């Protein structure tokens, strides 16, 4: 359903959401960074539409960096006492999710469903409602969503898309979850008029004009990459890579993880099995206990990251594993720029 909500009444809506944990981008003045944090319901301007990309996407809550799978301990000499720990089903709602980050969640959904449903992921995911905020102006100078099937007004993965129309929001509910959220405070929503709809269209066109970074002929890329597996291209491109984990940890679509047992005490045995993010840029990601490492150098790791996002994932899911949020581009300590890399790939002979 489509609605209109004035900015004044927006806080009332939020106030009504008592049964939810409400997250929104909050600016930390100390390091002037935006982060998703639970917000103060009484703050009138909870949602600042000009906010820049958050350091981490909602991934940090839907797919937390640390997830306890189970707790174990020795019960007696013979047996062990093992207790699964599922995340509690608290309802949560994210306001102001950027369309790129929402699309990223949609991509993760694909990964965590399929043949095997990741119960830990879905417990959180199902209880999460994503309220997007269309980008009237790109939140980063390196945004390139248009190149990867996205748009500043994309709805994919969202339950509601808000469009900032100055004094009011155009509210587009896309799912049941979205409708539920609106129904919590029906009365404050109005029906949209034609001028609202056209205003939305205009805003979208204006915004898309402002996105000035792009990957050319992206359709060609997957095949091109396939041919380039053994190319020395990767050695060249990775020269400046310092094998840190910023690009992947900040990426809203990267979802690799490691599972380890954290032993707290040996006698009596006590510990937890946890899932933590892992990272294909770390040398120990593929390290075998034999000492063999199939991806021994930076080149093979940069290649892995690029191919995973722009070849393997496409082959499997028919999507790029990238939504153009540009965090990796802006935050890379040495300015490795996936846009530039892929444009080079296109011209690589």
């Amino acid at each position, binding site marked *: 359903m489509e609605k209109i909500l004035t900015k004044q009444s927006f806080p009332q809506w939020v106030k009504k959401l008592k049964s939810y944990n409400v997250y929104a981008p909050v600016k930390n003045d100390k390091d002037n960074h935006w982060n998703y944090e639970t917000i103060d319901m009484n703050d009138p301007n909870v949602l600042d539409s000009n906010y820049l990309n958050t350091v981490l996407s909602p991934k940090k809550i839907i797919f937390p960096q640390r997830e306890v799978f189970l707790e174990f301990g020795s019960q007696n*000499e013979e047996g062990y006492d093992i207790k699964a720990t599922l995340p509690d089903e608290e309802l949560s709602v994210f306001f102001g999710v950027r369309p790129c980050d929402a699309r990223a969640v949609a991509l993760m959904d694909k990964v965590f469903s399929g043949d095997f449903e990741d119960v830990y992921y879905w417990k959180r995911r199902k209880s999460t409602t994503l309220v997007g905020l269309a980008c009237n102006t790109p939140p980063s100078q390196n945004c390139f969503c248009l190149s990867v099937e996205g748009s500043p007004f994309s709805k994919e993965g969202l339950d509601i898309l808000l469009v900032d129309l100055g004094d009011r929001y155009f509210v587009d509910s896309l799912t049941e979850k979205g409708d539920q959220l609106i129904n919590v405070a029906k009365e404050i929503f109005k029906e949209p008029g034609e001028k609202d709809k056209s205003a939305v269209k205009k805003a979208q066109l204006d915004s898309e004009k402002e996105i000035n970074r792009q990957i050319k002929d992206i359709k060609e890329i997957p095949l091109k990459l396939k041919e380039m597996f053994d190319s020395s291209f990767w050695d060249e491109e990775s020269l400046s890579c310092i094998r840190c984990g910023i690009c992947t940890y900040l990426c809203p679509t990267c979802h690799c993880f490691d599972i380890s047992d954290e032993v707290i*005490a*040996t*006698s009596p*045995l006590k510990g937890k099995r946890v899932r933590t993010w892992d990272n294909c840029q770390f040398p120990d990601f593929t390290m075998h206990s034999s000492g063999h490492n199939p991806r021994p150098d930076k080149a093979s790791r940069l290649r892995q990251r690029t191919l995973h996002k722009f070849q393997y994932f496409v082959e499997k899911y028919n999507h790029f594993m990238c939504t153009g949020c540009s965090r990796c581009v802006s935050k890379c300590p040495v300015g490795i720029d996936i846009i530039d890399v892929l444009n080079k790939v296109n011209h690589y002979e």
Partner: protein
Amino acid sequence: MKKTGVFICHCGINIAGTVDVKKVAETLSKYPGVAHSEEYIYMCSDPGQNHIIEAIKEKNLDNVVVSCCSPSLHETTFRNACKLAGINPFLCEIANIREQCSWVHKDMEKATEKAIKITRSTVERVRRNEPLEPISVPVTRRALVIGGGIAGIQSALDLANSGFEVILVERSPSIGGHMIQLSETFPTLDCSQCILTPKMVEVSKHPKIKLMTYSEVQEVSGYVGNFKVKILKKPTFVDPDKCTLCDECTKVCPVVAPNEFDVGLTGRRAIYIPFPQAIPASYTLDIKNCPGLLPIACGKCADACEPGAIDYDMKPEMVEEEVGTIITATGYDLYDKEIMAEYGFGKYADVLDGLQFERLLSASGPTGGKVLRPSDHKEPKEVVFIQCSGSRDPELHCAYCSKICCMYTAKHAMLYKHNVHDGQAYVFYIDIRSGGKDYEEFVQRAVEEDGVLYLRGKVSKVFEENGKIKVWGVDTLTGKHVEIDADMVVLAMAMRPSKGMDELAKKLKIAMDKDGFLSEAHPKLRPVESVTAGMFLAGAAQAPKDIPEAVAQASGAAAKAVTILSQERLFHSPAVAAVSVNLCTGCGMCVDVCPYEALTLKDGKAEVNEVLCEGCGTCAATCLRAAIQTRNLTPLQVHEMIKASVGG
């Protein structure tokens, strides 16, 4: 998982009195990996040890923890027991629950809890111990003695007489050191040369002693039991075998140089024999003073030499020797003249140092034993002896006491009186230190029988005035200012380590104390050993000493050396550092910190010399890469011990 056996000792009530040993045993029996846990009244007793041995055999345990008294007491006992039971002794560790637990606590419950933690953490350690074998090295059963003074001679003889080959290195042309210069020795006044020369001859004749005079140690490498030494043999230009001691060469030599043996009171030729009884009995041509080796330049001595013993083409030669131990006995020199200018030393001919005076008193000396003034060969009627010239003077000179001066000054004064019956001897002193057998009596004799006048106080000024040497001082006992018109002044100069010893010490890697004497490993318990294994100290090189002390220490050092030389192989604790080459980046920080130079960099990687390593582990803590660890006390072991000590 490895099977650990835990054995808790009651030690009568010493432990059981405060620690509930049953509870400890019981708790530990439930501890992961513990296959056997028992307590017993006296574990160290034979039945106790048998418990351990049987348990090991029955339950075939892999390793053992004994919770009892301090490891310093029974570690060996229990490790041997384990050995008997057929497991490597290094797989047995002691948990100290007596000295560090039962004896220092009252509250039984808490003491028990602590005993459990201590035992637990020892279990965590022992189960990660690796079986080790003592490191064994073959011993080169020869010794090197550096310095041919009385100390060096004594050590060399003792070692040789114990049946070991000895290389005795002396840098001057003859052995004998300072002792050979002395006239008579306190307190018995027997003639120094008479008692020393037989020993010198014995050295020269001894089949096991290789004497290398006019030689200097250039380089030392290796480690205890296996040192490699490079010795430079300086050319004497005289072949001792050919030389007949006819002395024709000196007659024709045109050059006169100060005679070291007479401390410069007389001269010698450029070609010379240090003194008649010199060993080896041969001449030396000292090129510093020789006009030139080319016959054109001079060549008189060669012409004069009937047997043609003189060979100008003799070249310095580098000799390499392998030895198992090294004794350093480089002796002393007297404090530099120049520095003692305040007492007119070096300024006035009749101000002498102790050694010069010894030469005046010596029958073999320049005056044939008569005390005569160097300046005018007159008999001095008033002689002032000044003790502590340079000693016990932290502000200007040496802080330490040179120890022997009180005695030899008394001797000097006494002998002077015997020489010049109508003369008067004055002695300025701070204190008289005459500890030693018959020493005090000797000093008293000087005062009472020979009327030596002792003045307690320091000399303020020494200057020449109409043919006399005026000595101003204060007698602090009377508080009076004293003025003496002396004919001769004798300074009891401070003893210093012999010149060049610092370089030698560096070559040997022996530490020196603040005064430049060699440091012993422990001031009380290891007085003749250096900190470097296999290196020993003898004589005044370590600190001022008189002859009996030097001889005693020399024999002590020899005996210590024998403890090494008498072995076929040396055994060394295997709990040493080990390098994980893959982790090492070759930064060399471990090399910097190792106190034993056991670590070196080889092709950019650290390498441990297991014989030199004492296993202190400082390298391991310094290494940023965790590339070094000490065997059986690895970071992993400590980490697990920490967990077991605080956890729970």
